[in-house]
């Protein structure tokens, strides 16, 4: 407890620095804008703005505070387009459309927006509180991890990724493997042997993380926007004067509480972020409270559950990223890559060695959540107006921002071609139902995975049995097996039940 308090004190002294405070607010504001724009979610927003944030030459904690602000600001803003347009900004906001949009259509857009803002605030704040309590404990435990345990942790991370993310397990696994393979390009750090460089000097240091991120996310997103291009304006429902009432909060308090808990713990699981969390929270809430079959027709509880959950998941995803160096979601994978660019190795020692970064980030999230609530309640009309920005201005703007980012950092015009090509590749992957988060997770974790495996086998002198010699790694392998088998088993059981009671369908 004491470490938490002193840590938070350090953190707030960093986060309350006027410049960092400004960055929190700027990040939250920009994030909400990005989240509100239809089609642009947190991951694309962070991907496009990462090189620019890096190029501004901030200190690592300032850059991270800005990017994290954009991240949870975008989770916050995603609900605006879901509610008013019925177009989710990203996968995490899909569930919000189910009850949010009917409320807006019933003339209660203002109430839906303000209620979901409160739910997001509660979910986000709950997650930050748990983050500041759990993270130091988990970090203290993770210090004892041996390389073999880290290998087991990676296997667990990829198992939960393959099992819970995306439509097809094989495709998710392949996506992660593609990421891992991309990470092997460059000089092997242990032996100095070049791998897959084909004599091209630019590849010796490996493919730049920024290029992969901007290409796979920013440029692929741009092509997707062009593909689904709608000419003219989208029809946005008007924001009226209705507002959240105390009776709503009283009715929804348990829904918010349950969803926050679910969201946080799903967020902590490596690889599974807001989309899984909001889906599970909505499903659970529907099973518990949908006694009058009002879900899907504008029930406020169906609105608050996914909103509280996806903001809690955004906070939860920070836990493994900061304590283990293993990102909890695609977006935190990008934040992790951002830390690596500043030569900061996230992991168990981050809280003790770079407290200003770790605690500064945590403290900025407290401030950010309050700021988001304050920004969102009165300014929601302004953000809603952003929805009507025609796509034909937005799409070129993404390309221009991506080019500025890559050119200012790398300063090499060949990389502009490389991001375009990676964008085409990413578009194909998305089109064929591969999710891109596993690719970036694989890319970020590649060297960590390989180095720990090699270190473990060096310790044991090449004996593979060493990998399962410790109770920690065995536990992780068992959990990994469970997380792969459980959904298959549950699906089979559900199918059997369905077969038994065909009447349940009606």
């Amino acid at each position: 407890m004491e470490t938490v308090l002193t840590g938070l004190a350090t953190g707030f002294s960093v986060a309350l620095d006027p410049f960092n405070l400004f960055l929190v607010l700027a990040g939250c504001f920009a994030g909400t804008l990005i989240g509100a724009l239809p089609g642009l979610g947190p991951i694309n927003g962070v991907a496009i703005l990462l090189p620019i944030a890096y190029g501004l030459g901030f200190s690592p904690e300032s850059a991270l505070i800005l990017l994290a602000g954009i991240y949870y600001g975008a989770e916050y803003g995603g609900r605006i387009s879901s509610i008013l347009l019925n177009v989710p900004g990203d996968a995490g906001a899909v569930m919000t459309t189910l009850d949010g949009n009917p409320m807006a259509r019933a003339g209660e857009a203002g109430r839906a927006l303000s209620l979901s803002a409160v739910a997001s605030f509660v979910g986000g704040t709950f997650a930050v509180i748990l983050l500041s309590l759990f993270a130091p404990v988990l970090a203290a435990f993770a210090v004892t991890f041996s390389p073999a345990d880290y290998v087991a942790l990676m296997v667990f991370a990829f198992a939960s990724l393959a099992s819970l993310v995306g439509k097809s397990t094989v495709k998710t696994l392949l996506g992660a493997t593609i990421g891992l393979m991309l990470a092997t390009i460059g000089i092997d750090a242990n032996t100095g042997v070049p791998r897959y460089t084909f004599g091209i000097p630019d590849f010796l240091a490996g493919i730049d993380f920024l290029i992969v991120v901007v290409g796979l996310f920013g440029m692929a997103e741009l092509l997707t926007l062009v593909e689904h291009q709608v000419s003219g304006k989208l029809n946005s429902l008007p924001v009226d004067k209705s507002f959240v009432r105390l009776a709503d909060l009283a009715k929804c308090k348990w829904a918010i509480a349950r969803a926050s808990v679910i969201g946080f713990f799903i967020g902590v699981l490596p690889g599974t972020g807001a989309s899984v969390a909001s889906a599970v929270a909505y499903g659970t809430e529907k099973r518990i409270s949908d006694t009058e079959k009002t879900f899907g027709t504008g029930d406020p509880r169906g609105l608050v559950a996914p909103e509280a959950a996806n903001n809690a998941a955004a906070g939860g995803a920070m836990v493994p990223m900061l304590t283990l160096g293993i990102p909890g979601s695609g977006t935190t994978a990008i934040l992790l890559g951002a830390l690596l660019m500043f030569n900061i190795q996230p992991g168990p020692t981050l809280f003790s060695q770079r407290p200003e970064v770790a605690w500064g980030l945590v403290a900025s999230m407290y401030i950010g959540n309050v700021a988001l609530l304050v920004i969102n309640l009165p300014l929601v009309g302004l953000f809603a107006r952003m929805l009507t920005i025609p796509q034909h201005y937005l799409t070129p703007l993404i390309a221009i921002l991506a080019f500025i980012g890559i050119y200012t950092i790398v300063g090499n015009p060949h990389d502009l071609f490389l991001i375009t090509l990676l964008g085409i590749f990413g578009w194909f992957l998305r089109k064929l139902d591969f999710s891109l988060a596993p690719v970036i997770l694989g890319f970020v974790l590649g060297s960590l995975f390989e180095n720990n495996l090699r270190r473990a086998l060096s310790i044991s002198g090449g004996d593979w049995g060493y990998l399962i010699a410790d109770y920690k790694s065995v536990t992780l392998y068992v959990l990994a097996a469970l997380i792969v088998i459980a959904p298959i088993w549950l699906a089979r059981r559900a199918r059997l039940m369905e077969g038994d009671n065909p009447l349940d369908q009606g």
Partner: protein
Amino acid sequence: MVDRIFAGVLLVVSLAYAVIAFTTIKAPFQYDPLGPESWPQILSLVAIACLLVILWKPDATEMGVARATWFRLGATIVMLLAYAELYEPLGFILSTILFGAALCSMLGAGMARSVTFGVAAGIAGYLLCVTLLDLNLPEGELIEWLLEPAPQSEGTS
């Protein structure tokens, strides 16, 4: 079908990756039991296994992209490549004006609006990034020549 083609292409790439992993990569000394080659070998086997499963049981059959959409995507990619090609020679402002106006008008905005957008994005973007944020963007030879007297007039005012 599309799934199979894509998986087939990736399979060729993965096989090439595997061949390199199994034959070419060698450390002059064995530093650790695995060496630099084992990890890529493992990865290539996993990738090939996944790809064989996809080839055996593909799930996406159609791209679901209309012909007009393919055309639009192709044009976008050509514009992006042209933008990348002209980025340094023309400089940020001119290339952005061209790219912004072209993509904007292709996406359905009127000619006047597209040009306004392009000019605004090019000039505002440059001023914002270079003067305010201190980022490095290509000036281009033409702009360099035009801007040359600018610092002097600023100094006198």
